[in-house]
């Protein structure tokens, strides 16, 4: 333990440090360097010219818009256990449960809303789901709408989202 | 389809009642009587037993499901209970069972019938058939079917 401790010496309390101004100058030098380099050739700046250019480096771990996965027969994998709603730090998942009649399970969501305006995209719901029913693998990173209501995703919308990285069906509920 | 004990059985029950400190003890004897009378134990019969023994119907039902020899459903075919426990298995019960597969009977794989010394053994209608061989099974079934 003790050999892992790295003792960093405090900067000497010299006049140079106390004055701040040299440090400010050094900082300004750095910013100026970038400023002049970029102003002389702005296209050398490596940025993505969105929206003409779309990102190509979204990994399968990227937390995009949510979706509800399906079972083999196309019905929802969700059993309305409320684990996602419980785990949700921003309380943006609203579920109502009902009896499921097809015998695959006992319970299913009657309604399932995610208020994406309240959502912080932390992915806890995906972690919490025992049925692999909710995922954030759609790769959808931009969501637009004209009204607040447009951002409240209902069950049908969530089910209609496609996974961007293969694997359409729930792994836990077949 | 309601059930009522036959007169003969009612007399038997009355006689048995004197032998036990409580009518509750008659649960098993009554179930046997029902099974012999009807061939199986119907829910109506359970109610009738309940009446005789003062045990609630559910308790009678529970007792009936506990013991393997009581049947809650009508059984059509000839019932052949073949012992498959260790001694019989060691003496070739598997061959007998395999042979019976082709017959028009219901085969019940039952546990030890208490005839280990005369294994393999099967029981049909309370009668034991011991020291079975395939030929013996053939002749027994021929006689019964």
């Amino acid at each position, binding site marked *: 333990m003790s050999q892992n401790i790295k003792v960093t010496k405090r900067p000497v309390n010299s006049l140079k440090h106390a004055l701040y101004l040299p440090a400010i100058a050094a900082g300004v030098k750095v910013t100026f360097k970038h400023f002049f380099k970029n102003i002389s050739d702005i296209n050398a700046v490596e940025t993505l010219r969105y929206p003409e250019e779309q990102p190509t480096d979204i990994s399968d771990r990227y937390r995009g818009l949510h979706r509800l996965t399906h079972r083999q027969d196309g019905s929802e994998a969700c059993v309305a256990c409320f684990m996602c709603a419980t785990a949700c730090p921003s309380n943006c998942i609203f579920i109502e449960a009902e009896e499921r009649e097809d015998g695959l399970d006992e319970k299913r969501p009657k309604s399932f809303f995610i208020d994406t305006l309240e959502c912080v995209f932390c992915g806890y719901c995906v972690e919490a789901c025992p049925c692999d029913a909710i995922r954030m693998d759609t790769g959808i990173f931009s969501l637009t709408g004209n009204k607040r209501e447009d951002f409240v995703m209902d069950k049908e919308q969530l089910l209609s989202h496609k996974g961007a990285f293969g694997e359409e069906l729930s792994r836990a509920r077949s | 389809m309601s059930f009522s004990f036959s007169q003969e059985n009612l007399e038997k029950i009355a006689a048995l009642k004197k032998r036990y400190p409580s009518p509750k003890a008659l649960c098993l004897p009554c179930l*046997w009587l029902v099974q012999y009378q009807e061939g199986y134990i119907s829910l109506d019969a359970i109610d009738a037993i309940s009446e005789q023994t003062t045990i609630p119907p559910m308790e009678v039902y529970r007792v009936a499901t506990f013991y393997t020899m009581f049947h809650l459903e009508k059984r059509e075919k000839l019932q052949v209970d073949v012992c498959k426990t*260790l001694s019989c298995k*060691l003496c070739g019960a598997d061959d007998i069972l395999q042979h019976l597969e082709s017959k028009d009977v219901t085969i019940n794989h039952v546990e030890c019938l208490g005839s280990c*010394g005369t294994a393999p053994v099967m*029981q049909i209608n309370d009668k034991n058939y011991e020291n079975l061989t395939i030929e013996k099974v053939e002749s027994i079934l021929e006689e019964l079917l």
Partner: protein
Amino acid sequence: MRECKIVSKKFHLPNSHTLSVARKNGGYEALEKLKEYSPTQIVAIIKASGLRGKGGGGASAGEKWELMPQNSEKPSFLVVNCDESEPGTFKDRQIISYDPHLLIEGIIITCYAIKAKQAYIYIRGEYKEYQDILQGAIDEAYGAGLLNACDITIHRGAGAYICGEKSALLESLEGKRGHPRLKPKQKEPEWYFGNPTLVNNVETIASVPFIVQNGAEAYRAFGTQKSPGTLLFAMSGHINTPGVYEAEFGTNMLEYIEQYGGGVKNGKKLKAVIPGGVSCGVLTAKECEGLTLDYEALRAVGSTLGTGGMIVMDADTSMPEVLKNILEFYHEESCGQCTPCREGSGWSDKIMKRVLDGEGSKEDLEKLFELADTMNGKTICVFAPSISIVLLSFLTKFRKEFEALVL
């Protein structure tokens, strides 16, 4: 090895089940002694004889009789346990079919000793044929006026191994499911509808007339110091002449098998013996060498004498299959009252099935060991501990055969 016939004296006689044959051969003579002895004296004689319960546990019968109150306001009952369901055991069947009057005589004496007016014979449901013989004998006895002092009622079970356990048997006799009762906190008799009750095995009761007639010492002349008397040992499995043969305690096992059983079938080598019904730990051929048949000697090799029903297996027997068969039996027969037995019996059976199907792994065997540990001593009755003993004896003594399956 000397011949000794205390219980099986009349077995070989034709029509031995009839009263006349029984009378001719000394039946009901012990009843004369009842005029000499008081009930407590009879209990003392039984205790002095060292008669041990022959249903498997081997507890002293006399001590049990002593627990019965002599001056109780409540009626006392005698229950004869004829629910002989232990695989490999079929001795009580011999008694009730070949010498039922011996049993009736024993019951009369016992009822006298414990002041019971009512005796029940709880017979297993599968013994319908033998029940009829016994019923015939009882009717004869009634007819002869022998049963004035007590009534004997045959109570037929309906196929539940657990009803051989005395408290489960009483539950069943009370018209309930055969669930064993919680152990009593102190030494006390059994209770039947709240009345003191004695529960003894058929053979134990059948041994009583001899003791009463000839005295405790005559009985002690047989057997060993700690296990006096005789037992109807049974043999089945891979043996030339299977059957029930009475022998005294302390008889050499292999000699017994050779002499009565005619040796292993087809002249094969002996592989293993289950000494007293499947609930006893299995013995390898090596362990059987020089082993005497008494409670103490078998306990010394980590098994029990049980009911004395030996199952003999020859060298070609697959031990995993034997174990599977026994586990199937337990799975089927567990009463399902308490958790370790209910779930453990089924689970061990399923694991064993996996192993036999070739889908098992080493962990499965480990699981069986753990299960055996969990089932041992944590249940209401001794059903689950028996599974545990069987599992452990098979798995440790024939480990190689099991490991061959999972590799």
